[in-house]
């Protein structure tokens, strides 16, 4: 019985180009208060374009209708839970949107004189300090634009430190449960990737690690808790082992939502890590970004951090570009400042105790869901879960129903699917992370929905296999999209 949603008419809407009609306009510029200039004369006729062929011409009302209608075709956190594992889709506080738009912040130019940018610089310093405290690390860079960008920065920092010690080494070890960005990042950083198998509990296998750990290993990239939501209880030993061979321990901070206020990576042996501001720190996903991927490091990495750093000089803040050992810049300017503002607002709103309570609730919610689904879905790893839990579709697969189908059927029940088929070490994975900003009612609806689908998989597998049934758009032909890619509109 589907309780969370009911069908409703929603508007059709063509593409902007299909609405477009010559002469329609939505803009009005102030009159030019200086003499007009003939473009061909000023730039050379060969440099001037004739027109922007195919570009739309629509009115303001149509634009409002167009995008409003499009928005009604989306699911969003504001509509309900996203139980996506390792994505931490939590509430995006609106006060964060408000403060990011305050004029003195939104209108600040990155090159404006430092004495007129002290506020922006103080925001960055404050956030760096708070993130260092939360992670138990010594220094933080806010430059990276997203998690993967932070990973690259982190691995480059590891390389720089090792180089300064005489040998950058050649390989990075990555658990087979890792997120795809980890090996992709290591490759871009110029390292070979070696996968290490997890143990029967889904954790880093110490014996395996020892087997792989030779003088060519620069670092191990871990996620803690790992992508199964399980805390790596041997993490300190892992760290010790790596350090004894001169290697480093990198942590993917995607799962910080299980740790904030309870345990700090810097305290359990992490050397360098990144954070995802658009996960743990509530900055909005916006359909796929922007994000923020700060990197936190132990003090021995400090000289290598991306340039510039902010330094204090008689109470005044200034940018220090004189950093000869720095790995360089990883992007222009200073970071996704607007995202940093939002993350800082989030931390200020919570305070130390609030962050800890958020973590407790995140873990409570995940375990509540796990407990009430354990009867219906196969649990491949019985170790205790923290903020996320992973099931497999083993029981349903016997009836030809796979995790992807269950996910699509969950859409009919009014939810966004969980993470499908990841981590790869679980055959047919269902990875669920509710986050702390879900109330009991929403969780109960989610549990009921998944239990109902498990029953459907037994009694009416075809219904599940052909889902979704109630959406505006039914199962999308992704095969056709890949065989003959059409990635832009064309007239006619």
């Amino acid at each position, binding site marked *: 019985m589907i309780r969370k949603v009911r069908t409703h008419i929603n508007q059709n809407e063509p593409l902007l180009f299909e609405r477009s009609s010559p002469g329609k306009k939505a803009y009005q510029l102030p009159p030019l208060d200086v003499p007009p200039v003939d473009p061909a004369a000023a730039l050379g006729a060969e440099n001037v374009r004739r027109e922007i062929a195919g570009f739309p011409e629509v009115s303001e009302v149509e634009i409002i209708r167009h995008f409003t209608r499009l928005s009604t075709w989306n699911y969003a956190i504001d509509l309900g839970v996203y139980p996506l594992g390792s994505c931490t889709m939590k509430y995006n506080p609106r006060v964060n949107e408000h403060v990011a738009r305050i004029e003195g912040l939104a209108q600040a130019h990155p090159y404006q004189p430092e004495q007129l940018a002290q506020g922006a610089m103080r925001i960055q310093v404050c956030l760096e300090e708070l993130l260092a405290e939360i992670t138990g690390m010594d220094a933080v860079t806010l430059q990276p634009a997203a998690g993967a960008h932070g990973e690259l920065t982190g691995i480059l920092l590891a390389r720089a430190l090792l180089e300064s010690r005489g040998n950058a080494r050649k390989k990075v070890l990555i658990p087979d449960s890792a997120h795809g960005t980890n090996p992709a990042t290591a490759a871009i950083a110029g390292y070979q990737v070696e996968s290490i198998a997890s143990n029967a509990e889904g954790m880093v296998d110490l014996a395996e690690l020892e087997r792989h750990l030779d003088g060519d290993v620069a670092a191990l990239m871990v996620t803690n808790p790992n992508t199964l939501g399980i805390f790596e209880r041997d993490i300190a030993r892992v760290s010790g082992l790596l350090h004894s061979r001169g290697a480093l321990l990198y942590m993917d901070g995607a799962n910080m939502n299980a740790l904030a206020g309870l345990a700090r990576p810097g305290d359990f042996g992490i050397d360098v890590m990144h954070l995802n501001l658009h996960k743990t720190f509530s900055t909005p996903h916006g359909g796929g970004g922007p994000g923020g991927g700060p990197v936190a490091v132990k003090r021995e990495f400090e000289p290598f951090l991306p340039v510039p750093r902010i330094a204090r000089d008689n109470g005044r803040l200034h940018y220090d570009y004189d950093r000869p050992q720095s790995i360089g810049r990883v992007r222009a300017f200073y970071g996704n400042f607007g995202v940093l503002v939002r993350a800082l607002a989030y931390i200020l709103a919570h305070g130390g105790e609030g962050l800890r309570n958020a973590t407790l609730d995140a873990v409570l919610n995940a375990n509540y869901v796990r407990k009430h689904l354990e009867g219906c879905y196969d649990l491949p790893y019985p170790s205790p879960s923290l903020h996320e839990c992973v099931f497999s579709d083993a029981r349903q697969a016997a009836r030809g129903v796979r995790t992807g189908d269950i996910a699509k059927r969950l859409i009919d029940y009014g939810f966004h699917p969980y993470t499908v*088929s990841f981590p790869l070490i679980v055959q047919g994975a269902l990875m669920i992370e509710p986050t702390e900003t879900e109330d009991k009612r929403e969780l109960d609806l989610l549990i009921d929905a998944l239990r109902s689908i498990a029953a459907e998989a037994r009694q009416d597998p075809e219904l599940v296999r052909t889902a979704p049934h109630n959406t505006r758009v039914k199962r999308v032909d*992704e*095969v056709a*999209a*890949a*065989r003959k890619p059409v990635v832009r509109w064309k007239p006619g």
Partner: protein
Amino acid sequence: MYPEDFRYTKEHEWIKVEGDTGVVGITDYAQKELGDIVYVDLPNVGAKLVAGKTMGSVESVKAVSDIYSPASGEVIEVNNELAEKPESLNEDPHGSAWLVKIRLSDRAELDGLLTAAAYQEYISAETGH
């Protein structure tokens, strides 16, 4: 199911020897595992292949699989139809959807490959059917 005159690899490629050339493809098992194939990346004519090393890849929507050459040699022909119709690899993997033809450089390598019966046994063991 699996043609007797082909030889097979454990990575699910086949090779049919015709004189001093070999026709190379992927097996029915491979195409089933991949699902709907959307793209095939093949080497160019003239490329030198090495037995056991990657020679290209085949993609479905959600996965990519490397193709390993069953034998060493030079590519003398590439099946250009696959660019237009990658789905033929799902339809006829042992026939019209061959991948490349190579001029073999070391026929002795073929001795290490599996016969149809051995390959059938291998995949039964892998999958349990």
